[in-house]
C-alpha cells in the first residue's frame, strides 16, 4: 500500500502471478490505451507525454517529452528501449520486464506511433533469461493480437519490434554504448559531440532511447491524460516512481511511490515500505540513487524523493535504488566493492577510467585488508581528482561517458563521512568489522 492514494501505475497488475500473459493483460485493460492513441494524431499523443512532464527513469532524469521533440525525423529513425538494468542495487526494470512485458510493449508501440518510427528495439539485459523469454513471448502474442506489425489495429500504422539480448556488460546501459552494442560492436560509449542519439543514433540515424520504466508509464498517460500524471508528485518530479530498496532493511523490495510526497524516511521506515532497519540498528548511511551517487547520512532522511530536491542536497535520485547501511557496516569495504564494480565494468577506452579505477580498487583493497598507509587517503582523493577534476557534485566529466566520474563519489563521500573508519583500518592493520 503506497503512502499516498496515488494510482499504482507500475504495480497495479503485479498482484496476479500471471500478469505477464496477454490474457491477463487484456483482461486488465491492456492495449486500450494503444487503441485510444491510434485515434489521436501522433502530435496529440506526443503532446500528452510532454504535458505529463515524465522524467526519464533510466537515471539521467531527462524529460521524455523534450527528448522526443529533439528527434530529427530524417532519414530513418528508431526507438530503442533500454532494459539493460545493471546499476548496482537497481532491480525495478528486472521486475517490470518479467512481470508486465505487455505494459512495456504497449508503451513502446504508443511511443513509436507518437514519434512515427517504424522500428523499435527492446534491449534486455542478457542475464535476464526469464525476462527475455517473457518479453519475446509477449512480443509474439502482441503480433498475433495485431498490436504490433503491419497495420496495427487497422489504423494504417505499422511497426516492427525486435527484442535484443545483451551479453553481460554494465556499460551497455549507457545509451551510446547500448547503440554500439545493438550494432554488434563492443559496448564502447560514443564520443561526444554529437551529444544526443536524437541527432545521430542507431545506424547513424536519429534515435530515441528511453528506459523500460519510462515506456511502461506511457499507456497510463495516454489513458488518463498527461495532466493527470503531472498532477502527481510536485515540481519537476511528476507521477509515481519505482524505488528499489535494499540493504539492511526489514522489507527490501521494489516500491512504487508518488514522487516528492514521500521521503527517504518513509521509504526506509514505513511499515508498508521498508519496515525499518533490521534488529533496530542505527542507520549509518544510505546510498540514495545508485552506485555513482554520493552517500547520505541520517540527516538526509527527511528529504523528499524528488529529483531536484535530492540534487540540491548534493546527491542524486539516479536510477531509484536506495541502499541502506546500518551501524555494523564497514564503509571501506562498501566503497571498495563499489569501486571494484566500476573497475570491472569500465569499458577501457579512457585512460583515467581504465587505469584509475584499478588503481583505486587496489588501494582500497589494501586498506580494507590491512595494508593501508596514511598517505593513501590523500592519494585516493588525488586519483579521484585526476578522474573527475575537483571531485565535487555534480562531477565534472572529462571522460567519454559518465562512468568515469561515477567512480569518485562513493570514495569521496565515504571518506568525508567516515574518515575515522579509514584511519582505524590503517592504524589497526585491518578491518575492525571482521
Amino acid at each position, binding site marked *: 500500500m503506497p503512502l499516498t492514494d496515488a494510482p499504482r501505475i507500475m504495480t497495479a497488475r503485479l498482484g496476479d502471478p500471471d500478469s505477464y500473459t496477454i490474457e491477463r493483460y487484456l483482461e486488465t485493460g491492456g492495449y486500450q490505451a494503444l487503441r485510444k492513441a491510434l485515434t489521436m494524431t501522433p502530435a496529440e499523443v506526443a503532446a500528452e507525454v510532454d504535458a505529463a512532464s515524465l522524467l526519464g527513469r533510466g537515471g539521467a532524469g531527462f524529460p521524455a517529452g523534450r527528448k522526443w521533440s529533439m528527434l530529427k525525423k530524417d532519414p*530513418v529513425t528508431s526507438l530503442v528501449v533500454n532494459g539493460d538494468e545493471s546499476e548496482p542495487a537497481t532491480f525495478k526494470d528486472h521486475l517490470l520486464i518479467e512481470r508486465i512485458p505487455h505494459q512495456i510493449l504497449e508503451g513502446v508501440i504508443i511511443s513509436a506511433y507518437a514519434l512515427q518510427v517504424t522500428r523499435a528495439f527492446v534491449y534486455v539485459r542478457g542475464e535476464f533469461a526469464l525476462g527475455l523469454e517473457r518479453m519475446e513471448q509477449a512480443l*509474439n502474442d502482441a503480433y498475433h493480437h495485431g498490436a504490433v506489425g503491419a497495420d496495427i489495429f487497422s489504423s494504417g500504422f*505499422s511497426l516492427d519490434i*525486435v527484442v535484443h*539480448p545483451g551479453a553481460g556488460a554494465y556499460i551497455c546501459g549507457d545509451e551510446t554504448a547500448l547503440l554500439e552494442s545493438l550494432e*554488434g*560492436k563492443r559496448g564502447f560509449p560514443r564520443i561526444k559531440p554529437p551529444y544526443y542519439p536524437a541527432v545521430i543514433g542507431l545506424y547513424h540515424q536519429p534515435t530515441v532511447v528511453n528506459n523500460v520504466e519510462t515506456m511502461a508509464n506511457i499507456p497510463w498517460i495516454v489513458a488518463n491524460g498527461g495532466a493527470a500524471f503531472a498532477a502527481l508528485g510536485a515540481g519537476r518530479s511528476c507521477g509515481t516512481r519505482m524505488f528499489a530498496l535494499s540493504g539492511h532493511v526489514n522489507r527490501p*523490495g521494489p516500491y512504487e511511490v508518488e514522487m516528492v510526497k514521500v521521503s527517504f524516511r518513509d521509504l526506509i521506515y514505513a511499515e508498508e515500505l521498508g519496515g525499518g532497519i533490521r534488529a533496530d540498528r542505527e542507520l549509518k548511511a544510505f546510498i540514495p540513487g545508485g552506485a555513482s551517487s554520493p552517500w547520505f547520512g541520517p540527516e538526509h532522511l527527511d528529504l523528499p524523493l524528488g529529483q531536484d530536491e535530492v540534487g540540491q542536497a548534493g546527491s542524486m535520485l539516479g536510477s531509484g535504488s536506495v541502499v541502506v547501511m546500518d551501524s555494523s557496516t564497514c564503509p571501506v569495504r562498501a566503497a571498495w566493492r563499489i569501486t571494484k564494480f566500476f573497475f570491472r565494468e569500465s569499458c577501457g577506452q579512457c585512460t583515467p577510467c581504465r587505469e584509475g579505477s584499478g588503481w583505486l580498487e587496489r588501494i582500497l583493497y589494501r586498506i580494507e585488508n590491512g595494508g593501508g598507509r596514511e598517505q593513501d587517503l590523500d592519494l585516493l582523493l588525488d586519483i579521484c581528482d585526476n578522474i573527475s577534476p575537483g571531485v565535487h557534485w555534480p562531477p565534472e566529466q572529462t571522460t567519454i561517458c559518465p562512468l568515469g566520474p561515477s567512480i569518485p563519489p562513493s570514495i569521496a563521500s565515504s571518506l568525508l563521512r567516515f574518515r575515522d573508519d579509514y584511519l582505524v583500518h590503517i592504524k589497526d592493520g585491518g578491518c575492525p568489522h571482521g
Partner: protein
Amino acid sequence: MSYFNATMTGRARQLVSLYPEPRSALVPLCHLAQEQDGWLTPEAMEEIAELVGVTPAEVRGTATFYDMLHTEPVGRYVVAVCTNIACLLDGAIELLAHAQERLGVPVGATTPDGLFTLEEAECLADCDHPPCVQVNHRFVRTTTAAAFDRLVEELSAGGHAEDIPAHGTLVRVRRSGGLRVDAGQIARERAAQEGSG
C-alpha cells in the same frame, strides 16, 4: 561446411534478417552458438563472422567484451554469485567463499568433472533476495550455504532440468510472430542513403 546445425542455421538466418544491418545480429548469434555448444568455438566465431560480414578477429574482439560470451569452454552449470553492494551487505562474500570451498575451485575455474564453473557476478538486479545466485542465468534464490549445497547436489544428480536449461540456452522462446513489416523497406532505406551519400 557449416558450423551451425540445420535447425540453428535457420535460426541464424532469421536473426540476421531481423536487423537493418547484419552486424547487429552478432551478439544474438553468439548466444545461439553457445546454445549449441556452451561456448564460442573458433569455428563458431568464423561462421558468425561470415554471416554478419566482419572478420573473425572482430567477432572475437566483440565477444570478449561481454561477460556472458565465453571463448573458452565452461562447465555445464555456470554458477554466478553476486557480491555487489546489496549482496555484500548480506553475506555475499561469505557465500562466495563457501561456494569456492564446496566446488573446490577458485572463481573463474571449472570443476574437473566439467559440471560447474564458478563466477563472481556484478549486481544481477535481484537485490531483495541477497546474496543473489544465478545458475545458467536463472535466478535460484539460494541465499544460504546449506541451500547452496543442496542445489549443487541436486544439479549434480541431474535435477532441475526443467527450470535450468543447459548452459548457453538464453531463451527458450523464439520469435514467431510478425515478420518484418515491409521486406522492401530496408532496400529502400539503403537506396535512399546511398542516393544522399
